[in-house]
């Protein structure tokens, strides 16, 4: 594009003024409070308020900044305190008392209260940094680089870190140069299927025509994942910059961010980010003074998992039911309003600015040859350090779970890693050494998905988890095609029967057959991947199915119909009646001898007594199959 020099000049001025405005971020003490949804839920708002209040009360010259998700959700509420002369320190599990102490001791005086610090963010001589922990060794942040460090509501903070520099650089050159870089980077789409982004963009360029669209898929429907939302809440500008680069490369003048209406905070922050970008001349007409025009808007999705599928997403934007269409045509040829459309995931777009900035070689030096870059996961479930993590592709699942996540808590045994959500599968211990990348996971029967990783332990029943996902896909199937609508229903019915103790030996065969047919016969990838949770659990945990069917026993003691609660008299104490009070249905009574017992007819198996029974006694146990009760009672009373 013409006027390369003046673009760079304009950008330089923007950055200078941003640096000037944000200068005090580096001079004054700054408290950054993590305020993404995860933080707010854990009580970050009062924490931030407390910081502000105490700082004011004490008359300290410091600034409190609202930032996004730092990734360490297990220790929420979190804050990073940077004070000149000290390394920046991260504190977790904050409450008002701790805040008061930090303000008093650290900000006012010079005691950083190391005993409460989780980690230092810069190398120093006194306190360990991330790289001193196993997590830090593996973690490498590209997409999450700025998340948790900058205020998502302040564009200057993003610009001050060099944000929008990639756009300025690109606008100084030709669109083809951007496309070329993205192609050479071998970046694969992070929405699940791993299709090369460059090829998709190229198809849209080839499609011709003057009206094209760019869409960011932030529908994130996987019921155990929240990466995309965290990114939008924490660093929306990086995604916006990526979309603009894409629009420039393919020649689109309009783009949309399809965000679920269930993500109000993300919608709000993106909206604000768009306004600020427009004000700075980074969005809209004549971007950075060039002839390049592109505007972005938010489209709010209305809660249908299937709308994450690209053709369904486009249909819902057109005011129709989100029902996948048959292919061809592909979206790159005929998408939104029948025009060539590039649709990519949030993370895919977020990779673009760093790739343009730092170059293809840098990007491809991370990860593996076929899968360059990093993988972003929301690591949840039975793992000590839950949160948002980013590791290079090719890291093994074991490293991710044991090092980054610090393993399974409470001395329980690891059972499976559920990866890829409803379209993915459960991988057992034996598969933990496979590297995380699109191809290896697919081979193992799971999929990368968009990055939900749920760790399951010995207390989790694999039949129940398969049933859970089938219930989800069955409810979320659009209902259009025969295999998905009816096939998932029959599979769910069979799984329900098995978990309720009505399983028949022939069920496993029928289940496997149906799963195969639905996988092959469904119209879209929702149906085609819906059987994965069944196929993987059948493959790796068949014995659990068999225990349910043949012995009517749930080995993980989870399926309600196959367990009973029982109070072991030899462990119960006459002096305690916590369980009696805790029972919501008054099923627990005091026996004549003062010990407690459960009236099975009233018991709803809510688990409350087991949770409340003091660890000194641990008298409440679960039995499966329920027949064991008669045996116990015969002996016990």
């Amino acid at each position, binding site marked *: 594009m013409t006027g390369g020099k003046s673009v760079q000049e304009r950008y330089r001025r923007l950055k200078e003024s941003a640096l000037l405005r944000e200068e005090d971020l580096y001079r004054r003490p700054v408290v950054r409070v993590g305020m*993404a*949804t*995860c933080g*707010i*839920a*854990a009580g970050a708002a009062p924490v931030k308020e407390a910081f502000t209040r105490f700082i004011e009360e004490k008359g300290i010259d410091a600034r409190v900044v609202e930032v996004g998700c730092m990734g360490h*959700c*297990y220790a929420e509420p979190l804050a990073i305190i940077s004070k000149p002369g000290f390394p920046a320190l991260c504190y977790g599990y904050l409450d008002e008392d701790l805040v008061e102490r930090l303000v008093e001791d650290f900000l006012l005086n010079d005691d950083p209260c190391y005993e409460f610090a989780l980690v230092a963010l810069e190398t120093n001589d006194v306190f360990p940094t991330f790289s001193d922990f196993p997590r830090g060794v593996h973690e490498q942040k590209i997409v999450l680089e700025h998340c948790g460090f900058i205020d998502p509501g302040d564009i200057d903070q993003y610009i001050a870190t060099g944000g929008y520099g990639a756009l300025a650089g690109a606008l100084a050159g030709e669109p083809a140069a951007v496309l070329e870089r993205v192609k050479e980077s071998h970046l694969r789409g992070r929405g699940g299927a791993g299709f090369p982004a460059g090829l998709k963009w190229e198809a849209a360029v080839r499609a011709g025509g003057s009206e094209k669209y760019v869409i960011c898929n932030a529908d994130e*429907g*996987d*019921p*155990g*994942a*929240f990466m995309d*939302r965290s990114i939008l809440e924490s660093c929306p500008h990086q995604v916006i910059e990526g979309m603009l680069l894409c629009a420039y490369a393919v020649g689109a003048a309009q783009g949309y961010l399809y965000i679920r*209406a*269930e993500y109000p905070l993300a919608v709000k922050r993106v909206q604000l980010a768009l306004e600020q970008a427009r004000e700075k001349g980074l969005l809209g007409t004549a971007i950075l003074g060039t002839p390049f025009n592109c505007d972005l808007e938010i*489209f*709010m999705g*209305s*809660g*249908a*998992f299937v709308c994450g599928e690209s053709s369904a997403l486009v249909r*819902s*934007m*057109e*005011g*129709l*039911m*989100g029902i996948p269409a048959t292919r061809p045509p592909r979206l790159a040829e005929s998408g939104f309003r029948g025009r060539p459309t590039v649709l990519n995931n949030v993370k895919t777009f977020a990779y673009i600015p760093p790739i343009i900035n730092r170059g293809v070689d840098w990007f491809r030096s991370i990860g593996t040859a076929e899968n360059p870059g990093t993988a972003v996961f*929301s690591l*949840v*479930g*039975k793992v000590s350090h*839950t*949160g948002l993590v980013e590791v290079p592709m090719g890291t093994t699942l074991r490293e991710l779970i044991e090092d980054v996540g610090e393993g399974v808590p409470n001395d329980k045994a690891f059972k499976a890693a*559920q990866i890829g*959500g409803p379209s993915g599968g459960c991988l057992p211990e034996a598969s933990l050494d496979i590297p995380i990348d699109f191809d290896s996971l697919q081979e193992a029967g799971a999929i990368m998905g968009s990055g*939900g990783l*749920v760790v399951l332990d010995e207390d*989790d029943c694999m039949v129940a*988890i398969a049933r*859970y996902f089938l219930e*989800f896909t069955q409810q979320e199937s*659009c209902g259009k095609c025969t295999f998905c609508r009816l096939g998932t229903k029959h599979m769910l019915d069979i799984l329900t029967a098995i978990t309720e103790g009505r399983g028949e030996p022939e069920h496993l065969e029928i289940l496997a057959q149906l799963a195969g047919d639905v996988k092959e016969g469904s119209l879209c990838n929702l149906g085609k991947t819906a059987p994965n949770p069944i196929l993987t659990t059948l493959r790796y945990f068949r014995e659990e199915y068999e225990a349910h069917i043949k012995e009517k026993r749930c080995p993980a003691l989870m399926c309600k119909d196959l367990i009973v609660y029982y109070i072991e008299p030899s462990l119960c104490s006459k002096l305690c*009646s916590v369980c*009696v*009070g*805790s*029972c*919501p*249905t*008054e099923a627990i*009574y005091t026996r004549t001898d003062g010990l407690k017992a459960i009236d099975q007819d009233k018991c*709803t198996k*809510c*688990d*409350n007594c087991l*949770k*409340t029974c003091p660890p000194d006694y641990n008298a409440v146990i679960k039995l499966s199959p329920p027949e064991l009760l008669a045996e116990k009672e015969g002996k016990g009373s």
Partner: protein
Amino acid sequence: MSLIEGEEELIRNGVAEALLDHDRARESLIPLLLKVQGKLGYLPALAMELIAEALQIPAVDVYGLATFYNRFRLNPPGKHQIQVCMGTACYMVGGDIALDCFERRLEIGEDETTPDREFSLERVACVGCCTMAPVVVVDELVEGHVTPTRVDGILLSFGREIPKSAEKTEQEGENSP
């Protein structure tokens, strides 16, 4: 459902207002429905008819959309909305138990509203606080680690009486609120 006086006026105004911000095109349908529901709390039949008329599309298409997407409701919600997270992490540690408890205490099922229109109950997928599983969102406020005891606590905080615990005698407590 018949409308009470003033309600029709409210609906007509709500729809007219929403129509001001959007093109009268099929593409505007979902934004329109979201906006109208944002104003009225639900999508009354009349609103759907008015929107269909304005966009010149069959009313059944508007209804089809409203019944396709989870977000839309056809009935007025309760004063307090209880959303139980059934995301993977929450389900695995007893999200369904929390849901059961609410159902038992409120004597309604999922997606229903109590007859006094005080509470409505629904399930949602991951609200992004898996660390605090099981999670319940009560009127936008996130409650973590929700056990049956906490369910009662939440309802009590809204002045809902809970059947007395059977600690003292065996007869007491059967009378529901």
